[in-house]
């Protein structure tokens, strides 16, 4: 008896950026392709900056997205304004594509809830990033249920890592999505590592995509380092979902080139040779080689892009550092829609605490 289920696997570009299959019709749209490239580069430069900010104590723990830029950028460029993103904590790329501002992402990791109060209307219904593992899969199904009840032509994308696919929440989400044919696309970012636990001992299933089969819907694998492949499959899946044809699970195979978070040291559990080999597969170099070979990209454009991205990132860092802290009442303002009168004395308790500390500082 075999546990192997044959599932599609999509790749257009090999690690050297050479075409390995026929591109879809949009494949000669070099405006689109260079835009995807620009977004990936911006994400990577922002990500590097965020790690540097953590190292110098200007933000708290951060989860780097290094190596996974293709997945988020492809999803983000395909989501429509009225679709909903229900992300996990390694989704900087797709959040930036949804109009979440870099300074908002820095505010969040810098310990300020304003970072999840996205100002761009495109992301107004998007969930904040989810730190508990896989719980967001169910929230996405709830959003999709609301969409289905209201008969709307919208879709939900929810993301998670390979570790999340072991959780009951993920499997319960697949189950209900299949049972009710919900307009939701599950994107599993299989980056091979759940902190220190490798994919091979995470699950006995040969693929993570086949978990959809047990729930009664379609799953397939995609080269998560090939932005064109991810774009193609997400476009197909979103289109199906918006037209009421039910859920899809895409397992995007990539590699977490960085640490799990800035609080982690992956050299403790990961072989240097493996990481070195993974760098040969990474998504930015691959698309750059393809674009250069097609004469849609060159060194001059590359330099201009990097300078432009660095300006954007620095402006965001400046905005973040000048954002100031919120008034102390802000910690009470959103626990309930209105602070309950029955908890009134706790508000007083907090304000007295603040007054005491200010008075204390006055005596210094």
């Amino acid at each position, binding site marked *: 008896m075999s546990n192997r289920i044959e599932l599609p696997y999509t790749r257009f570009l090999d690690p050297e950026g050479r075409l390995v299959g026929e591109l879809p019709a949009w494949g000669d749209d070099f405006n689109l392709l260079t835009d995807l490239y620009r977004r990936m580069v911006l994400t990577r430069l922002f990500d590097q900056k965020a790690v540097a900010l953590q190292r110098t104590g200007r933000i708290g723990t951060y989860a780097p997205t290094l190596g996974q830029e293709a997945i988020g950028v492809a999803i983000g460029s395909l989501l429509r304004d009225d679709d909903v993103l229900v992300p996990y904590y390694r989704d900087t790329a797709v959040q930036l594509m949804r109009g979440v501002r870099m300074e908002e992402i820095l505010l969040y990791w810098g310990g300020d809830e304003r970072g*999840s109060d996205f100002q761009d209307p495109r992301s107004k219904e998007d969930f904040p990033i989810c730190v508990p593992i896989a719980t967001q899969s169910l929230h996405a199904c709830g959003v999709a249920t609301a969409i289905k009840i209201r008969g709307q032509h919208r879709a939900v994308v929810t993301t998670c890592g390979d570790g999340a696919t072991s959780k009951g929440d993920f499997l319960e*989400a697949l189950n209900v999505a299949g049972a009710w044919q919900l307009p939701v696309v599950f994107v599993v970012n299989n980056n091979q590592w759940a902190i220190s636990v490798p994919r091979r001992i995470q699950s006995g299933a040969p693929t993570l995509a086949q978990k959809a089969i047990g729930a009664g819907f379609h799953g397939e694998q995609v080269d998560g380092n090939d932005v064109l492949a991810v774009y193609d499959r997400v476009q197909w899946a979103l289109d199906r979902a918006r037209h009421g044809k039910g859920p899809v699970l895409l397992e995007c195979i990539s590699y977490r080139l960085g640490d799990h978070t800035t609080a982690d040291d992956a050299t403790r559990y990961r072989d240097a040779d493996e990481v070195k080999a993974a760098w040969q597969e990474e998504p930015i170099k691959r698309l750059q080689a393809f674009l250069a070979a097609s004469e849609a990209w060159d060194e001059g454009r590359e330099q201009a892009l990097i300078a432009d991205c660095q300006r954007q990132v620095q402006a965001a860092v400046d905005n973040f550092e000048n954002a100031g802290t919120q008034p102390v009442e802000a910690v009470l303002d959103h626990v309930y829609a209105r602070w309950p009168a*029955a908890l009134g004395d706790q508000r007083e308790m907090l304000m007295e605490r603040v007054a005491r500390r200010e008075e204390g500082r006055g005596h210094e």
Partner: protein
Amino acid sequence: MSNLNDTLEKRALLEAVNLALHRAMQEDENVVVLGEDVGVNGGVFRATLGLRDRFGFKRVIDTPLAETMIAGLAVGMAAQGLKPVMEIQFLGFIYAAMEHLVSHASRIRCRTRGRLSCPMVLRSPMGAGIRAPEHHSESTEALFAHIPGLRVVIPSSPARAYGLLLSAIDDPDPVIFLEPTRLYRMNPQPIIDDGRRLPLDTCFTLREGSDITLISWGASVHETLQAARMLEERGVSAEVIDVASIKPLDLDTLEASVRKTGRCVIVHEAPRSCGVGAEIAASLYERALLDLQAPIQRVTAPDIPPPLYRLEQLYIPSPEDVLAACELVLNYA
């Protein structure tokens, strides 16, 4: 003048819940009921009876059997502006849903600075006394009361079930609405189905008195009222307060009563340690110590799982247990 109540059909707590659900769904198309067996079957207790026929399968949803999923789904639906009213069949099955209640439902408003919110109600039967199997008889209201961002409401009569459930569904934040199974079919009373809400975060004084304050909620209100009547026969005037909203707790009403009577007994069916009774007692000591004539007494279940039904009456405080505590307080030197 004829009494309107004489002509009204009497309804028990379970029917009052059903009536309120009908009313809420009729008033607001965003109200959606979901849970296991809530549709065709009308719920295992029949609290959702008739809703599917009247409001259709899109609004009265039988879910797969998965409590984590029900709670997670409700978070997503509520964030989209629906008002999911979910049923967990018994409070003993709710633990699978806890992560979504604690980490998401209660926090999404705060995490997003109000951009998203979670206007949902989780309904669940609670408590012992109906000879149910294991894991059906718990009173774990204190678990929820500890969580910032949640409201916890427990009605003790059909009228309060009706009015409080409507308010819970209106509320823009998540409400845990616990229905004492022991009262589901007891003491029917006339209910006017006029959509009138009762306030949340507020205690209800059921009986005025001057000698002692008896504080309770949920099914235990029943035994507490019996004890108050027994006290009356002995010439003791007891004030009885139904807390109703366990969180946020209306301490002002409780404080005013205790200042007046100088004596207090708290009665609840949940285990004693770290129970809501402890919170109330501590707050009353902070607020009214010098008005107290005697130490506050708690009458509670012991810190044990509810026994199987042959001995479950041991677990539930009886009117005599309440009376004994009252005597201790009244006779305190």
